[in-house]
């Protein structure tokens, strides 16, 4: 009996981990097409207060978003290693996350072309929020997939 109980607890703990890692397959709710990263940040802060992490993840994960972000060359040096600043610098950094971009074919080259050698440049991108890690236990991380460059300016 005792061994069974131990096994149950360990299994439950392992399953809990798996649940967090699995993307939730939910129908896409309407209303996020024009939602900004500031909206997401606001909902994250709210979830931190209310514990509504699962609802937040279900609402946002899988959505296509169009955001203006800042690409710092040092932090986005290749198609396989690219994070961008979601918020303007000098805004109080209330959250630490920087979205990871996974580009649609050829789109990193487009980004590199329009930003050139500039240390930082602002770009408007469109992509799918493929993975959104939000919980009380782990830091927020955001992964945008199939990213396309919409506009860019220095």
């Amino acid at each position: 009996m005792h061994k069974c109980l131990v096994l149950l607890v360990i299994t439950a703990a392992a399953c809990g981990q798996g649940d967090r890692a699995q993307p939730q397959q939910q129908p896409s709710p309407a209303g996020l097409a024009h939602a900004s990263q500031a909206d997401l940040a606001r909902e994250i802060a709210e979830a931190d207060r209310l514990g509504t992490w699962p609802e937040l993840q279900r609402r946002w994960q899988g959505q296509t978003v169009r955001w203006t972000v800042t690409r710092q060359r040092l932090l986005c040096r290749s198609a396989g290693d690219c994070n961008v600043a979601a918020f303007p610098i000098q805004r109080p950094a209330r959250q630490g996350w920087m979205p990871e971009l996974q580009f649609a074919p050829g789109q990193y080259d487009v980004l590199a072309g329009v930003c050139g050698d500039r240390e930082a440049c602002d770009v408007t991108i469109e992509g799918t929020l493929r993975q959104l890690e939000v919980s009380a236990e782990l830091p927020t991380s955001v992964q945008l997939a199939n990213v396309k460059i919409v506009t860019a300016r220095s």
Partner: protein
Amino acid sequence: MTKLIQSLAIAGLTLGAGALTASASSHREAPAIAEDQYVDNTDVYAFISPNNPGNLVIVADYVPLLLPASGPNFYKFSDNARYEIHIDNDGDAVPDIAYRWTFRSQRKNGATFLYNTGPVDSLTSPNLNVTQTYRLEKVNERTRQTTTIMDNVPVAPWNVGSRSFASYEPVALQAVTTARGVTSFAGPRDEPFFVDLHVFDLLGVGGAHTTDGVNVMSLVLEVPITDVASRGTRPVAGASGKTSVVGIYASASRPRVRFLRSGRGHDNFGDFVQVSRLGWPLVNEVIIPLQDKDKYNRTSPRDDVANFGAYILDPEVPKLLNLVLHANCAPTPAMGRLDIVGLLGPNGTKAADLLRININQGQTNNDSHFPNGRALTDDVTDTLLTVACNNGGKVGDGVDANDKPFTASFPYLASPHSGNPPRP
């Protein structure tokens, strides 16, 4: 906290700009780890050996701010934890190698409350009642292959006092062990980090040596550089690629499940979960805000930019320095603090909270100063405050050196303070 600081500023509180904010490098820096003292990383140091430029020395300190007179259960390492030093040798911020210490406690006589039952003059003394030993393993973190380097190695005892140890340090140094070209020490040492901890009294620093007189639990490792270099080859002098530096962080992990049984002690189950980590000094202390401090300790350096990058690009420290101490720090540039990002990712490596050190041929101990590694004597508080403030001037906490001199030979750290020093 911010409101308090604002209130102070409004009240007209001004402090000298030469004595600015600081905190212990990573001592009790996050809420969860403050409840689990034995696995709390405090500092990591890395430098080319002063005695053999072919060797790298790494120090990982744990268990912060220890009073020397802390009996009868003197401090030690946890028997239910893994203590690890991780090394990334190809610049991707993913560890390639780990050195792992695991500990086991013993006692000779359970019918006494005494740590030692008489004077102790060697590690094999029958009077040394409570002892601890360890196994040191090298782990290939890519393949998970594990090799035991040494086993049943003694931990240096606590410096109980002059009645127990007529001459403590020779006994402690018997714990220095070499096997397979690797030299290891585990045990108490004088706390090497120097700082004015009065920062937590509303930034009231002014040169007080608040970490003098306390001890810490140290793991010290000296290894051939070829043991940790990518492909086992030390880069040539002047090499500037990603493999010319190694990135180091230390961590502690606990078993995933702990069973407490009424009247029957406890058992541990499951794989190990990281509960603490540290690379650079002061990152989790003053870069990461309260809401993410525990989360930082649970994550890996490779995800630092994705998880915490915005805090690095626009750190809070210079704003507080300006607000409270009128330090005239430079505003964050519009593109963010790319200078700090560059320091966290030298030679094209991925930016991460790793203590990186150049391992090229020709590098010597004199080259090992923060942020290229970290020497025991480095005043990292002043260095980081100066970098953070970024106004061309030097800022610091007014504490510039350790209370005890460091030693020229392994394990390089100073002998721990005695729990009962000889009285005049």
